[in-house]
């Protein structure tokens, strides 16, 4: 195998976290940085003229090629796992920018108590209220420590929103339940389309506290602290599963690449599939020496480096450590081992579908344009008499309806599935239908984890990553609780007919439910219960860092991107300010 000239820093994965770390280290130090991205190169200029629902939203043109590699899924440790042969419950990105190119842009902060979930819940309700098979834990970082990094991430992206809590002062119209923030959002809220406006009015009438969804899709032109300028959103409705045609939605290619291109010490190598992290043993500890990868010509090479970052999304971060033999794989029976544990997804349900008399003009919208209520989120309502813990956010988003995905959503009164009767009903309903969605917390359980599949292999002959995952009673009861609230909201919006979510049963790997997979390489304050420390540094290999949602101990209800960017900034600071001066354990 050919050995390449050494670099100071090698980063596996060219998405949000990998490129942010490259930009931070590359511009704040003189270090040479190589980013290895297995997908193809992308630039912001590639996107105009790609507004095609079929290729991008239905055939999911921007996602990983499953013919090369997928995951297997089962519900418990006894079942034989089956491969996800075509896309289902989540859509991992590939290529420069990763999933950050085709996200919707919804950018909330997590509630303060999410970071201390175990301690706060036990303090309030006692340890007995926790599900018997839970494995929830604290993050090893508090909201107060995160706040400056949240602010930095919001300013980098230019988040459009309305503050609800500035240094403890509650502001009506924003999310009054949010954690304190040091300043107002960088840009004003997005425009609110009709369907979302109806929801906001109904929520207010019912005594809830609606607020505009925080959006990485700019409401106005904006120049961020790095000097990168982007234009305002046109509400074309092509965000999720698309790259932004005008650069209004913050994406790695339009916020980070312009800065990276200016730096001679940062290189991005696309078509580079990393297979192993190579490490050596020195004394009591291990040291990462670099990574091996197949380059874009199919040749396997070794890239030596002083510092190694895994930033290749939840699946691949976990799998690379398993394949490289770094850390002790989690054993669900004995409870020993940390690598692969605390796999969580996110409760994602269409709680209520509302059918209206009036047309809604739903083709207009933006990925994060909408109205939310957090009245049933986290522990913001008393759970003493309820059969579950925690909660989530009810939303009425106006992401822009596209016809292939949405034609044929019908009320329960229509029985036909094809033919003239069906066509007539579907034509009537097409632009008169809206979804009240719910995103809720998925607690961590001992039985939900990732390991290597014994049967199915990738294109190189390496074992696929295996998910063992199911919902707990907590998630099922939470969904049952929130569904009637959504139905009440739909009726208050003036819906003439409503249909409700049928209930959470087994984890459905075939139904799309947000691309928010967490865990596997979780962070925490003890090496016995986590893979990385609160600075995302590997407990056993101090020159190895892991970035992204694979480090989240469990899923909070809110979407993860803003938090994983804030954590990346925090790690970059710790490395520049402390680690580079004296390489050692940061915690």
């Amino acid at each position: 195998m050919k050995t390449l000239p050494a670099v100071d820093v090698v980063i596996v994965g060219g998405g949000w976290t990998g490129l942010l770390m490259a930009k931070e280290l590359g511009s704040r130090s003189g270090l040479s940085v190589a980013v290895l991205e297995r997908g193809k190169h992308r630039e912001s200029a590639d996107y105009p003229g790609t507004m095609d629902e079929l290729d991008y939203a239905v055939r999911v043109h921007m996602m990983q090629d499953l013919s090369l590699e997928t995951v297997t899924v089962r519900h418990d440790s006894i079942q034989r796992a089956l491969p996800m042969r075509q896309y289902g419950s989540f859509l991992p990105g590939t290529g420069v920018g990763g999933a950050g190119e085709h996200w919707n842009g919804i950018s909330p902060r997590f509630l303060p108590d999410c970071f201390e979930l175990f301690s706060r819940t036990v303090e309030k309700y006692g340890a007995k209220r926790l599900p018997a098979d839970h494995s929830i834990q604290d993050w090893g970082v508090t909201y107060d420590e995160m706040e400056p990094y949240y602010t930095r991430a919001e300013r980098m992206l230019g988040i459009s929103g309305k503050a609800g809590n500035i240094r403890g002062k509650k502001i009506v119209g924003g999310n009054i339940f949010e954690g304190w923030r040091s300043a107002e959002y960088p840009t004003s809220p997005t425009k609110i389309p009709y369907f979302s406006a109806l929801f906001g009015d109904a929520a207010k009438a019912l005594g809830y506290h609606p607020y505009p969804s925080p959006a990485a899709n700019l409401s106005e032109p904006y120049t961020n602290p790095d000097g990168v300028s982007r234009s305002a959103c046109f509400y074309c409705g092509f965000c999720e599963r698309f790259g932004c045609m005008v650069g209004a939605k913050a994406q790695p290619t339009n916020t980070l690449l312009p800065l990276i291109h200016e730096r001679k010490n940062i290189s991005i190598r696309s078509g580079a599939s990393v297979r192993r992290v190579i490490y050596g043993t020195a004394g009591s500890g291990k040291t990462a020496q670099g990574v091996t990868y197949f380059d874009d010509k199919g040749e396997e090479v070794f890239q030596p480096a002083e510092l190694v970052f895994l930033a290749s999304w939840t699946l691949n971060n976990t799998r690379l450590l398993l394949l490289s033999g770094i850390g002790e794989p989690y054993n669900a029976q004995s409870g020993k081992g940390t690598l692969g544990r605390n796999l969580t997804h996110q409760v994602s349900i269409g709680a209520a579908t509302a059918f209206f008399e009036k047309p809604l003009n739903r083709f207009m919208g933006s990925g994060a344009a909408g109205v939310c209520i957090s009245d049933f989120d986290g522990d913001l309502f008393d759970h003493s008499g309820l059969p579950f813990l925690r909660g989530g956010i009810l939303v009425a988003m106006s992401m822009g309806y596209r016809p292939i995905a949405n034609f044929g959503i019908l009320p329960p009164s229509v029985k036909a599935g094809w033919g003239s009767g069906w066509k007539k009903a579907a034509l009537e309903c097409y632009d008169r239908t809206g979804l009240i969605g719910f995103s809720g917390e998925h607690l961590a359980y001992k039985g939900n984890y990732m390991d290597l599949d014994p049967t199915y292999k990738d294109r190189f002959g390496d074992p696929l990553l295996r998910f063992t995952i199911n919902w707990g009673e907590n998630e099922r009861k939470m969904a049952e609780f929130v569904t009637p609230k959504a139905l009440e909201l739909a009726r208050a919006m003036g819906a003439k007919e409503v249909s409700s979510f049928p209930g959470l049963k087994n984890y459905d790997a075939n139904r799309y439910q947000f691309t928010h997979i967490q865990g596997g390489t979780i962070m925490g304050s003890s090496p016995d219960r986590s893979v990385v420390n609160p600075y995302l540094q590997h407990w056993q290999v101090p020159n190895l860092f892991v970035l992204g949602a694979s480090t989240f101990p469990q899923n909070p209800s809110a979407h993860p991107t803003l938090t994983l960017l804030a954590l990346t900034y925090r790690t970059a600071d710790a490395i520049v300010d402390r680690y580079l001066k004296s390489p050692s354990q940061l915690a």
Partner: protein
Amino acid sequence: MRRREFLTLSATSIGGMLVYSLDRKPFRFFAQTEQSVRIPLRFFTQPEALIVAAAASRIFPSDEAGPGAQEAGVAVYIDRQLAGPWGRDRYRYTQEPFEENTPAEFGYQGKATPRHVYREGLKDLKGFDQLPPAEQDNKLKQIETTLFFSLLRRNTIEGMFCDPVHGGNIDMVGWQLIGYPGPRMSNYADVDKHFGEAFRPKPVSLRETPEGNNFRPSEDEE
């Protein structure tokens, strides 16, 4: 080398329409001047294409509510999809072993590609296009729960509402039915207006926009 097969679209049913021919050149023809247009087929034989066209027309009929699969050229769309990467499972994980009778929550686990599913399914519909509509409906009811029918139904909806560059939604008849304007670049001035009233800008297809002029559909991939 397969024999050249064609699907003939009648100009009287789709007169004055914009059709994308095989090389993606927009081609407009008129009922007054042309009798019909022969579209070269990429996957189906002509008898297969006639059956698919007839079945899609029962799923999404042309009726008093407006045009349907016939006018939209759904059969042309499906033919191109099956000939392309989707039809041959180019991007699907197809490593063995394949398990049978698995729960729906693990997604389709079968070995058969969409091409295979169509080719087999069509064998049960021999002569379908010659039947009167009521008998065609009975025939479809008998296969309603099959994988073939669910693919056909899904592909019919796709062919009704895809961008015309894919061969379906000819002249944007599908989009006009539902008031969808296509890839309209800016709704900035309208997104927070028109509350409670239908706002229906004239549809524009991707190839008619300056940005989308060079768009290459995935079914043309090798």
